[in-house]
């Protein structure tokens, strides 16, 4: 680990001032410290924001509002989360391990770095870590990599589970920075790699995630997260799907679908949602709609199975949410 300065702040203003001057925020540290120990991350200044009062989890009407510093485990266990947005609770519990969930903050979860092994090895070419050096994964071992949103420069998947649920539910995030406050959809936080894979998100310098708002909706209670992986816990998704359904009689009024493990960012499946509208609840309609998820997929040398697995995962998640499982 390289030397760095460490500053603990008590106010948001101090935090933003420090970050605007080049410091990196640290909350749970579950990604950042890990990567600093490998010298993949080399911040010179850290500003510890854990003392900021941003851990609230509360209901605001039908909306669920989550402070950016709330821990994953606290959010998952909170009665308002379970009452208003069970999908958020389920996706959180499927992520990481209990130890990590106890430490990791919601804001940090969204900003976690990719799990591509080449990104983590200093002697491997990686455009994300070392722009212009090349991508080792494209012609390397890429079974866990993305089939959507890839570029010739990067094929790493976004690793967060809860981000998939937040994107499906159309959650918004509030951020504050040197130039004030703004609010935008969580989906817009994530950039595609394109030819600048080292730029992962749309936060401006010094901006701090303050809270996440998950809007209530008629589909919120009929929502499930399915994470498919080779071991039952502590593994990133091969494919995951967050789905939410509003049903009327035996048919679908509206659907929300997002997937993880397959995209370079959490991937909302609007074509699938559209295709489900007005369809009867049942495997045939689910399968027909889920097939649309394959549009634009570009499998790599070792991850063709994801093309097979993606629609199956969506269908299963729809069945679970629709109560036909």
């Amino acid at each position: 680990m390289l030397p760095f300065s460490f500053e603990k702040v008590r106010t948001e203003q101090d935090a933003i001032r420090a970050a605007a001057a080049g410091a990196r925020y640290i909350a749970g540290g579950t990604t950042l410290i890990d990567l600093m120990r490998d010298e993949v991350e080399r911040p010179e200044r850290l500003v510890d924001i854990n003392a900021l009062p941003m851990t609230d989890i509360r209901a605001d009407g039908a909306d669920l509002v989550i402070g950016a510093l709330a821990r994953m485990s606290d959010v998952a266990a909170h009665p308002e989360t379970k009452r208003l947005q069970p999908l958020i609770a389920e996706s959180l519990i499927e992520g990481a391990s209990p130890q990590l969930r106890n430490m990791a903050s919601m804001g940090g979860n969204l900003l976690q770095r990719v799990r591509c092994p080449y990104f983590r090895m200093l002697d491997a070419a990686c455009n994300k870590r070392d722009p212009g050096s090349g991508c080792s994964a494209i012609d390397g071992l890429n079974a866990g990599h993305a089939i959507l949103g890839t570029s010739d420069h990067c094929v790493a998947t976004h690793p967060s589970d809860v981000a998939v649920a937040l994107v499906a539910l159309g959650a918004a995030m509030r951020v504050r920075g040197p130039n004030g406050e703004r609010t935008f959809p969580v989906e817009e936080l994530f950039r595609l790699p394109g030819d600048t894979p080292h730029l992962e998100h749309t936060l401006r310098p010094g901006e701090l995630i303050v809270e996440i708002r998950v809007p209530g909706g008629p589909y919120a209670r009929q929502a499930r997260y399915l994470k498919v992986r080779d071991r039952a816990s502590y593994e990133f998704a091969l494919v995951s799907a967050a789905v939410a359904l509003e049903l009327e009689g035996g048919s679908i009024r509206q659907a929300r679908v997002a997937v993880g493990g397959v995209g370079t960012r959490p991937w909302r499946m609007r074509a699938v949602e559209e295709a489900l509208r007005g369809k009867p609840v049942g495997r045939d309609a689910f399968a027909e709609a889920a097939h649309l998820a394959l549009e634009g997929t570009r499998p790599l040398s070792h991850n063709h199975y994801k093309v097979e697995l993606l629609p199956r995962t969506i269908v299963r998640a729809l069945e679970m949410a629709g109560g036909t499982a």
Partner: protein
Amino acid sequence: MTTTLIGKPVTRVDGRAKVTGAARYAADFNQHAQHYAVIVSATAGLGRVTALDDAPVRAMPGVVEVISHRNALRLAYGPHKAFIDPEVGERLHVLQDDQVRFYGQPVAVVVADTLDHAERAANALRISYAAERPVVDPRDPKALAVEPSGSRGHSHAARGDADRALADAPVKVDVTYDMARENHNPMEPHAVVAAWEGDRLTLWSKSQFVVNEQAEIAAIFGLPVQNVQVNCPFIGGAFGTSLRTWPHVTIAAMAARQVGRPVKLVLSRRQMFFTTGHRPRTLQRVAIGATRDGRITGIIHEGNGETSRYEEFTEALLSATSYMYSCPNVRTSYRLTPLDIGTPNHMRGPGESSGMFALESALDELSYELGIDPIELRRRNEPTMDEGENKPFSSRSLVQCYERGAERFGWAQRTPAPRSMRDGRLLVGLGVASATYPVWYLPTSARVRLHADGTAAVEVAASDMGPGTYTSMTQVAAETLGIPVEQVRVSIGRSDFPPAPPHGGSMTMASVGSAVRAACLAARDEVARRAIADQRSPVFGAALEGVEWIGGSVRRLGDASAGQPYRDILAGSGQPIEAHASNHRDPAAAQRYSMHSFGAVFAEVAIDPDVGTIRVRRALGAYGAGRIVNPLLASSQCTGGMIGGIGMALMEQTALDVRDGRPVNAHMADYLMPVNLDIGQLEALFVDEDDPHVNALGVKGLGEIALVGMAPAIANAIHHATGKRVRHLPIRIEDVLTA
């Protein structure tokens, strides 16, 4: 032997020390004024070091020394080869030349005043290589299989004419298997603290074989053996990775020598994938022919294991094939494929677990070709003797294991057709496989000291990587001496204790236990002699044969009294009694009998037909392994091995990037092993087996066999659930997705 303690569920005597942190592991032995060493691992997979710019690193804070092939001590590397070393080839001579033989090979070591400084400097050291593309895949056209050149009997066996029998067989299977490389991945990393005093070296080092580490380091440094002391009281799991003495031990001792201070060196998790051995990837072919009524007429088993370019690692991949089933025509042939990798090493259930995966999977396929229940097929081919060795078995309870296991597991409820069992929407499959492992038994010595306060101290250079050596040896000593376990203190893991064989191969209980028992018997005789010579003793003047030992006391034969407690006898002079003895095996028995453990392993899997997730919901192993010294430890040992088998079947694989040979998943998040949620209901049961031939304790050992058989039972269950045969390991979602 009367048994009061052997066979009892005594809880771990070191359990409290382990859970309170009082147990000290190698890296806990910090020395005054020690420095820290961090190894720099090669980032090329083959070639040589062309430049190494250490000047900037030497200027970094806290850096004391940078050692590479340019300035490393020239080491003697005297001849040394132990039972656990490959017979052919020569160990890696570390930092002695510029050659890079595999990715991750140590090419330098940085010594600094703190761990942080050493790590930082190690990351900053710039090294240039003339790199070539290594060959790391045995299927690479450039990889050439060769005959093993050593004499160890892993090579070929033949009886009858197996090829002819196969050609003539009315029913046959002929299939190939590919099993992934695995790394041991114990919780405790390899660690060593090295301290010199003049020409004497003390190592606190993670080792399953301290007396060998002592001898090997002495040979490498050209020292008299007694100048090296190796201590390792506790091991945080090993699974075989600490059987050999790996380059980091030499590097730590060298670094300590060169900087004139004690040096501590702990491998990173990633480095645990480089130079500390691994289960070799194997390619196998099994062909079995049978009559229509299920009599096996011929078996061909060909195996190919990867090894390094500098050592021929061999394992007993094909050994079991010659004795498992009755068959007049058997041919096995073993080949090695040297690759640009580090030398593999024994990993739990070495050889047998890989070979039995292929054999037991193929047998399951044959059972479906024949339409015969897989247990019935094995029963029809149960041999009456070891047909490979032409010897009777000292004991063999395979059929009883199947009977008891099948009953307990509910095998009769299984419907044989693939995809015929469901639980809701899940496909359910039940599979079975045999397990076996030889009974190893090697010379061991032990020392016991009886004190006047009635306590007994046992010393032996054995190890405890988790099976409970401390506890089981305490039981043996307490039982033999007739005293409570609380009065026995067992000390192990020091090279200056009486020598023990490697803590592996399931031989510790048999070998070390027999030596401890012998030492306790010798101590009893010493006590009796002292009492007989003591005028105040009730047995004064008796002949040694005229006294008996009962519950820690000595009395005359035929005397109905409680006798004289040995603490009273010792109190007379106040002098402790020390006895030293070795184990013993009747060489005639070893010649006369084939000695193996056997087991039957059952597994139930549930597979999601839509998304392909595979879960082992329950498994049961029934074992005939001689006497069970401690059912708690034995059960724990076996379920641990079964979990290792789940890892082998469904998860574990060290993935190498063929472009430079790097392990890509050298990380606990990426190298998958089962977590709690992956483990369903596991049960081990033990068939009563009284084997008077194996050793004085009648024990066969359990550590290795517990992993054998699990992977094929799971693979067979996956076939039963899905109808799909997957002939490689691990079997993952993508393999069953389209089943």
